[in-house]
């Protein structure tokens, strides 16, 4: 098979042993950070009867073959532990964190592996701004003596577009965005005929803005309401999502929310995403009814964030691709 390296040689780890030692060191520091902050480590299932509904995330699917009454049950590998962790929060766990493997079908490349290690944590009585500060403290602590953070920059999503792409995303339509990409950045998109404005914003973000973010820690906050995912939306003109992303040295590293706690609003977002899935001819998956029940019973005011640990390790050791920091990347798994 010309597509794959020989099975005779690829039994070996892809990452150097020194990199694997650095991974262990980062994991130890992360656990110490949360231990000192009094945040409880938790462990939730990777296999779930429900799946993420976002049309931009694809779950691996499996099934249970018995014995027992659940024989034949469809199961999905989680794309993040978010729903289960929120059930713990609703049950009164207080602030919690988890280090776990998550699984995303259809994602493979230099910065993506279909299976990767996520650090996800929730802070009760925090909003997204408080949590951004904690992300900065965590990174400074975990990377101390390994990688200097450099400067820390904060941008509102709209201002980021104005500064780095030279247009106001609230005023620019698809034509202006397409012209900007073609004329100033030589980006020629294919297959965008039916694309939404959000898709065009994603295109500008990934092709124009992210490559120009440069060194240092960059926080982007106040995403458009259409890109809220599971964040609260603040009233205003226009309304904005209490969502943030953290980029370190130009690499997307973490995504956080002031968490939506309204069960009805959550259900209507699930429904809207399932409708989008249907429209895009993507698999229709069961929405998480247990999460909705937990929200109905009451989610404490909290903020949560997920951070890619493999990417953090990549940055810490200056690796070019994820496959340089994974013992056995996808091709060798």
């Amino acid at each position, binding site marked *: 098979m010309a597509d794959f390296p020989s099975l005779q040689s690829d039994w070996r780890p892809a990452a150097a042993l020194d990199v694997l030692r650095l991974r262990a060191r980062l994991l130890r520091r992360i656990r110490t950070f949360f231990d000192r902050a009094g945040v409880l480590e938790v462990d939730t299932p990777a296999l779930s009867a429900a799946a993420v509904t976002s049309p931009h995330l694809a779950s691996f699917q499996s099934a249970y073959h018995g014995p027992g009454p659940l024989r034949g049950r469809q199961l999905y590998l989680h794309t993040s532990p978010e729903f289960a962790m929120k059930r713990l929060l609703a049950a009164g766990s207080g602030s919690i964190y988890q280090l776990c493997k998550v699984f995303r079908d259809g994602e493979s490349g230099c*910065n993506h592996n279909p299976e990767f290690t996520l650090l996800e944590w929730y802070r009760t009585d925090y909003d997204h701004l408080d949590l951004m500060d904690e992300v900065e403290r965590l990174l400074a602590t975990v990377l101390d003596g390994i990688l200097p953070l450099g400067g820390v920059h904060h941008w509102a999503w709209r201002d980021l577009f104005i500064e780095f792409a030279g247009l106001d995303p609230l005023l620019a339509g698809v034509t202006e965005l397409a012209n900007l990409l073609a004329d100033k950045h030589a980006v020629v998109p*294919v297959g965008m005929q039916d694309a939404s404005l*959000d898709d065009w914003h994603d295109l500008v973000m990934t*092709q124009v803005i992210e490559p120009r973010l440069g060194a240092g820690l960059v926080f982007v906050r106040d995403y458009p309401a259409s890109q809220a995912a599971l964040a609260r939306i603040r009233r205003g003109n226009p309304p904005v999502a209490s969502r943030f992303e953290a980029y370190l040295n130009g690499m997307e590293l973490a995504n956080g929310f002031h968490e939506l706690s309204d069960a009805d609003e959550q259900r209507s977002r699930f429904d809207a995403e399932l409708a989008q899935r249907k429209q895009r001819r993507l698999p229709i998956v069961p929405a998480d009814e247990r999460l909705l029940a937990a929200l109905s019973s009451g989610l404490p005011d909290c903020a949560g964030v997920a951070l890619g640990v493999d990417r953090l390790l990549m940055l810490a050791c200056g690796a070019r691709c994820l496959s340089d920091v994974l013992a056995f990347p996808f091709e060798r798994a």
Partner: protein
Amino acid sequence: MASYSTNEFKSGLKIMLDGDPCAVIENEFVKPGKGQAFNRVRIRNLKTGRVIERTFKSGETVEAADVMDIDLQFLYSDGEFWHFMHPVSYEQQAAEATAVGDAKLWLKEQDMCMVTLWNGNPLAVTPPNFVYLAVVETDPGVRGDTSGGGGKPATLETGAVVRVPLFIEIGDVLKIDTRTGEYVSRAKE
């Protein structure tokens, strides 16, 4: 008509783009955590040889290009067409000047070369990496000068002109690297 999804993109895949057959050189997956995925793809237009970049919305499909590479023996040129033959089936193919391109400088009768067919017709011709060609015209050789410094032009049997060391004489057979068009050595008798 066969088609490929962006999920199937890999180096060497032949696709149709803007009506021309193209080959994927490099495929980079780009995706924001919460948003639309894209494939940033470097593509070679097989008709013009130009390399371009396109950003595909992931999940889109494109038409496959019916392109294949076969090894054929070069027979002769009649000035308008370059004629090739399959060494086993004896099936012949005639390539136009645009398909042969710069390869014509290195094509010697009976040599094997790679012919790229699109919908069954020659699209491009790639000569072997190294060819052996006789010198038909050059200034008289300077005996004993094997330094390789300086050099002079020499015309080869195919009409190609290459820069050669001063000691090369008419009738010498030279080894040429067709990728750079440069002299490598004098062929051993």
